[in-house]
């Protein structure tokens, strides 16, 4: 039983180019400005949990060519995640209920981070926890990693349940949001930006954004999925093993644009401190990326669209650049929040 015919092993360095440089006849400057410590060659990132930790997607494009690669949220210990079904397709979207399956921070640091470094990716490591203490612990072990120099930023996924608060999602409560960031920030060297990832499932997202920034976040990632349920009408029970799931994909794009708009507007008006926003939610094309940018995002993540098109992050970057080129817009970063002026 030793002959393995499979050829689906992931590639090493010999990666086919979905090359962002070869097609550049536009002269557009795609540099993304996410504050003094996070300047990226282009604004396109993967969304956490939609690209695993890089190896698999690297078969479809060079992850080092992305503005940044955002990893699957990692907790302290290994996580099995939930039973299946873990997903349901919904109109122009999907529900997922993975349960943050992952190897735990130690295995991540041992296997995944070195690989990301080896291919030259700018890694944004997404961390999660069931308590603010766990977040801090994950950050501490990450910072201690030999390959920590591959980490461009840390995304703090506070859109996950807080066991100490009846499972209420941290980012549903300003105090919990501040609390997580307050414990994480001291663990992380200055120069490494912290991005707080927010849920749209709140009555008002602006105070949550404010609370995360008050706790020490340098920027915000918006939005995580919306809580949803799909019922299996044949079996007359919830389709997902975990009952509820997170709604993502183009279906939710108007909600993402709205959340980004509201927070960026509050920043422009000086109601909350200014900070860069990373936009995510339903981006499938360069035009979608432009829409989130005009609403106030300084960089863009592509999630569910990857499942439809594994080369989506690179394609979106190209489409965005070509769109700007056609319109004679020289610099991407000039467009951030531009729709607030018109």
């Amino acid at each position, binding site marked *: 039983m030793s002959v393995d015919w499979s050829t689906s092993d992931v590639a090493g360095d010999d990666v086919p180019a979905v090359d962002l440089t070869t097609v550049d006849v536009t002269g557009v400057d795609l540099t993304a400005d996410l504050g003094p410590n996070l300047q990226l060659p282009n604004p396109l990132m993967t969304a956490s949990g939609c690209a695993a930790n890089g190896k698999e997607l690297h078969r479809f494009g060079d992850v080092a060519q992305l503005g940044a690669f955002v990893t699957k949220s990692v907790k302290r210990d290994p996580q099995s995640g939930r039973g299946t*079904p*873990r997903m349901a397709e919904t109109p122009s979207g999907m529900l997922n209920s993975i349960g943050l399956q*992952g190897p735990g921070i130690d295995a991540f640091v041992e296997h995944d981070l070195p690989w990301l470094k080896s291919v030259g990716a700018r890694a944004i490591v997404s961390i999660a926890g069931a308590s603010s203490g766990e977040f801090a612990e994950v950050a501490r072990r990450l910072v201690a990693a030999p390959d920590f120099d591959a980490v461009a930023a840390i995304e703090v996924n506070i859109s996950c349940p807080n066991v100490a608060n009846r499972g209420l999602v941290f980012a549903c409560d300003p105090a919990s949001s501040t609390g997580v960031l307050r414990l994480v920030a001291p663990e992380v060297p200055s120069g490494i930006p912290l991005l707080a990832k927010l849920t749209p499932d709140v009555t008002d997202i602006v105070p949550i954004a404010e609370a995360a920034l008050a706790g020490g976040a340098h920027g915000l990632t918006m939005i995580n999925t919306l809580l949803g349920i799909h019922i299996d009408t044949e079996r007359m029970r919830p389709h997902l093993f975990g009952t509820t799931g997170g709604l993502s994909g183009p279906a939710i794009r108007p909600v993402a644009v709205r959340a980004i708009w509201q927070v960026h507007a509050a920043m422009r008006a000086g109601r909350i401190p200014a900070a860069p926003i990373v936009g995510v939610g339903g981006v499938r094309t360069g035009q979608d990326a432009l829409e989130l940018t005009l609403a106030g995002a300084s960089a863009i993540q592509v999630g569910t669209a990857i499942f439809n098109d594994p080369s989506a992050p690179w394609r979106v970057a190209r489409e965005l650049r070509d769109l700007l080129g056609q319109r004679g817009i020289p610099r991407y970063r000039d467009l951030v929040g531009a729709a607030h002026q018109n």
Partner: protein
Amino acid sequence: MTGRDTGVCQATARVAGNAPAAAYRHLTLDAPGIAQLAQPGQFVALTVGGPTSALLLRRSFSIHRVDPAAGTVEIVVSDAGPGTAWITRLDDGESVDIVGPLGRGFTLPDAPGAAVLIGGGYGSAPMFWLANVLRENGFAIHHVLGAASADRLFGAELADPADELIVTTDDGSQGERGWVSDPLPGLLERTGAKAVYACGPMGMLRAVTEIATAHGARAEVAVEEAMACGIGVCMTCVLPVVGADGVTRMSRSCVDGPIFDATTVRWDAVAGGRVAVPADCLGAPR
């Protein structure tokens, strides 16, 4: 777009044929990159409905066979819902976005002998190609094809005349009345086969696993878990599988499968269309 380097291609494939085959459609797609790379047991993933489609996720299909010279990939599709309805209606000359080959294929035993290949419904699609490869490697092939009824049987006419062919239907409308697993014990005893390959519904795979194990045969099964991405990035397609270290992990059937050594699958976790996380699984909730 991608080549041999990564073992996987994404392409816009032209439909070169779409013919009825029992209750299914037999599609031939021009996808030379995939045709060159694929091995039996691997699968492809197709988009559905074009750029304005509300169906975002790809649909997965076992590769029935490839013709590397012609550059074609063939699949057998059952019209089971809106996505497959769209795919089965593709006309010659239309195109569809395809990714493949995906997953790990079947593995070949070290020493030749008798091999039993079991397909339930369209699950027999990959089995004739596998049979060819096994035969070339000196195996004697015994096919068991089963389905609910004659119209749901696929490929009985595709079996090589040199191979044994047993057909079962639940309603007896063709072949023996009963399940594909019914003739299996007798067949294993008679042939002494130590290699079993199976593709079909979960219940069938579990039964095959138990019978094969009881007869000292090694079975490889092709599982069919709902997949959001098919390429290993989303973690939706998992199944509890025991590793070489004896530890159970929720393994992705799209990259660690869809072909699994049958005894490594935790069948005890599978019930009623759901798969639970076994309590002893790595990282199981406490």
